[in-house]
């Protein structure tokens, strides 16, 4: 196998130095898996790089081998079938938003992909990087995909393994070396979906809190199924099952949903950060629920672009 390997024994920046670092640009999935397997704990996938390249700012060491996966065709593919959409892990936020734009049932995911970060970052950052970054609590695609009941497929030399996104979130930090998020599988259930996020400033910021919602209605207009996922409030996004139960069986009503959310929000323990206190992240949840439910009536929701 021919590998394009670039490395050098001395770092130009002594501050960041491990003695030797290399980047291997994998041409195919098997080649990436081989390199990751051989590299063991010293190696990691490099997708968009928008998290990895900020490691020095977080005072984290860089790995000695990065396996770049952004050029692998099957990781960049999006397949839209009648009953599911499969998204390669190296699909960028911009590519995902463009492909899903016409599919209303995925509004939640289109919004997550097209409102996060800024335009240049959206052409770099990948869906796989968004789901795999354990330390990133504000990931927009995580709650969006949780409310869509997504599964993920993990690839390794030993073969593929499929699991729910919910389970992946519990195991991602201990993913054995040599394993790679291959694709995300999102079932098509014709639900109405919406993504409500609150950044501190209007544009370019991480969201303080996120509410992603997917519902199906019966003929009488009552909620038959509901999925609510909350991101950025706690260290890992999760479903809000008690609010789901409160919505089912009733007509979609923004005021009532807000009241239910206010009653149930106490189950969240907000995470503290220098820019946003823990209590604030929890306090804004009812308002985000109101915006999400109201938008399912009107079609438009979320934060605006622009300064």
């Amino acid at each position, binding site marked *: 196998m021919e590998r394009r*390997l*670039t490395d*050098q024994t001395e770092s130009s920046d002594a501050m960041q130095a491990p003695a030797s*670092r290399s980047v291997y640009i994998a041409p195919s999935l098997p080649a990436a898996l081989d390199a990751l397997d051989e590299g063991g704990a010293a190696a990691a996938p490099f997708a968009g790089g928008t998290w990895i390249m900020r490691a020095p700012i977080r005072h984290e060491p860089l790995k000695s081998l990065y396996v770049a996966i*952004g050029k692998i065709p099957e990781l960049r593919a999006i397949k839209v079938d009648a009953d599911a959409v499969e998204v390669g892990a190296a699909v960028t936020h911009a590519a995902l938003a463009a492909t899903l734009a016409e599919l209303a049932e995925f509004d939640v995911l289109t919004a997550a992909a097209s409102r996060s970060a800024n335009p*240049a970052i959206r052409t*770099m950052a990948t869906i796989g990087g968004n789901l795999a970054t354990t330390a990133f609590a504000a990931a927009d695609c995580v709650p969006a995909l949780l409310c869509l009941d997504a599964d993920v497929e993990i690839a390794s030399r030993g073969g593929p393994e499929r699991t729910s996104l919910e389970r992946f979130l519990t195991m991602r930090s201990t993913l054995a070396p040599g394993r790679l998020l291959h694709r995300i599988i999102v079932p098509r259930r014709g639900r109405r979906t919406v993504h409500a996020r609150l950044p501190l400033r209007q544009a*370019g910021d991480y969201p303080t809190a996120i509410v992603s919602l997917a519902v199906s209605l019966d003929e009488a207009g009552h909620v038959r199924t509901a999925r609510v996922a909350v991101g950025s409030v706690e260290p890992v996004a999760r479903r809000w099952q008690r609010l789901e139960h409160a919505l089912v069986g009733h007509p979609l009503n923004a005021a009532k949903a807000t009241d239910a959310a206010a009653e149930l929000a106490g189950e969240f323990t907000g995470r503290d950060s220098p820019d946003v206190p823990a209590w604030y992240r929890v306090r804004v949840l009812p308002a985000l629920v109101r915006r999400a439910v109201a938008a399912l009536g009107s079609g438009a929701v979320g934060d605006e*672009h622009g*300064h």
Partner: protein
Amino acid sequence: MNMGIDLTVNGDHLTSTSDPVTPLVDVLREEFHLTGAKPVCREGFCGACMVLIDGDPTPSCLVPAALANGCDIRTVEGLAANGGLNPIQAALEACDAVQCGMCFPGMVVSLTHLVSTRPDATREDIRAALTGNICRCTGYERIIEAALLALATA
């Protein structure tokens, strides 16, 4: 072993010998002495390090040198048209849009791309396109006026 990283920067074929994970902005500034792109936040938030990579605006603080191998890179130093100002550069000057200038290399890169790829861009489109270019001085209004002028006259 260092195979070198081959880049085309503003039309010149150059080879970098830097560590493969070195941010491209540092290669441009420290190895090639192109100091237009500025590493201000090194986080992808401010846009002061924006360059065009194969035609797309990209924060060069987040691109490792190895992944720029074989790419066509344009920095603000390479955007002038035939030795003169390009339409957005001329419009920014005409609108007296520049204050301290820290953000401007990145602004010019992002807006050069906008003007050449989206001739029908509206004021809102311009604002959205600049969400990754932070300016602490101008309040953006003159920059947006300049972009509208460049679009109208391009």
